[in-house]
């Protein structure tokens, strides 16, 4: 889960930087691709780890799906060069990441 929040933060930061024109588009695109990949890997590991109680697993999966959906949107927006929409996704991502962190803290897991 640590990797998931870390890559969510990466996507968020790369998105922000792209909006400010501080990084080239090819770089932002590639970084967000990696973030999408890493998140789906984390989801697979989650599905396969038997130690997590079922109700928590469902919630965790939901959080990851939300993050992945936002990052996916961000990827499309960057491809079409839409800075305003990326800005929106960045804000949404910030909220979702915070929600995930809160959930993890309540679940007693490592943030």
């Amino acid at each position, binding site marked *: 889960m*640590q*990797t998931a*929040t*870390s890559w969510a*933060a*990466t996507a*968020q*930061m*790369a998105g922000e*930087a792209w909006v*400010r*024109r*501080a*990084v*080239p588009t*090819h*770089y932002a695109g*590639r*970084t967000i691709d*990696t973030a999408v990949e890493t998140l789906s890997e984390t989801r697979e590991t989650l599905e396969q780890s038997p130690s997590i109680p079922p109700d928590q697993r469902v919630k965790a999966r939901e959080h990851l799906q939300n993050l992945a959906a936002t990052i996916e949107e961000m990827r499309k927006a960057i491809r079409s060069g839409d800075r305003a929409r990326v800005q929106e996704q960045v804000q949404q991502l910030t909220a979702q*990441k915070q929600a995930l*962190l809160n959930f993890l803290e309540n679940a007693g897991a*490592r*943030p």
Partner: protein
Amino acid sequence: MRKKAFEITLGIVTSIGGFLDVGAIATAAQAGAAFGFQLVWAILLGTICVIFLVEMSGRLAAVSKHTLVDALRERFGVNFCLVPFTAELFVDVLVLAAEIGGVCLALQLITGISFPWWALPVAFLLWLLLWKGTFEIIENGTSFFGLITLCFVVAAFVLHPLWKLFGAGVLPSLPTHDKAHYWFIAVAILGALISPYLFYFYSSGAIEDKWGKGHLVVNRAIAGLGMGFGSLVSLGVLVVSALVFQPRGLQVDAYEQAALMLTESFGYWGFIFFAVSLGIACFGAALEVSLNLAYGTAQALGWNWSENEHPTQDARFSASYTVFVFAASLLMVIGIDPLKLTLFTMALTAVILPLVIIPFLILMNDERYLGKHRNGWISNGVILFIIGLAFVLAIVAIPLEIIGG
């Protein structure tokens, strides 16, 4: 005297290979992102150890006119040296591959063209410089362009860190979370800084620059200032990473992430500065490691060698760096992740370190080589303590990290 002041370039080029190469930048960034300023002590401890080791190898070369590899084979015999030399050769080839990879990653950040495509062009440029250049061109060029890495130090000041917290990191403390990971990163930092190729290279460099006993004082200054420069930049990377990444919960597992480090302070230029610093530092380190591989081979077998001669004057020496550079670049062509490769080589370095350092210490206490310039108890004590510590940490922390994932 002006000539001697210029000798500092040997110190800077050596320190770039140790402190600013692909692995050291990565570990400093990881340390800052995961533990804030808490691991500053590991960089400082590594720096002290490297200063002592580099000073020793310079002293050996200046007094005995023999490089460290020469002296090791002559003093201990070929059978004893077989293990440390082969291990060093193996590690150096992997490190060279990772450094070439670092240059390729920097080019990927700037151009968007994926890194394996850059491996052969980078290797060719590297080889061309070795083929046509002299030792002086290489040390001066690397030192001059290496100054750009000071951008990390500037960024650290621009971000106004809480120096009190930084000060607290100077003394080692126990982590509040992720204990195994903390010690693993501490080992990785020590392993990245205390690389044997540093002092092997430095002793060869001292011979290339024709040092004599008159250089003993200069040698001390160069070891201190040169390694101090590298350490300063390394601390800059750690501070920036701690201030930019830690609050966001961003762990540095890939260079894509590290590349965002300077965008907060300098915007687009920050991105370019990061890529250029990475590229130049890794290129400098690659030059150093390639030369070190060829020096080591030639010295272990007693061949004639010098980067200052035309390749026709030392055919075997020139042929060996040619082979090493292209062999290492092939590892990058097939697309091995440079970061994973460096983490592996650093862990390996920490384990084989005692095997290299203890014979080195025995040599430094040998009257035949050093005469009255032998090691004092301070040098011996400091080195034994730090190497012992790094070794113990390595055999404890590496298995823990593997179990903990």
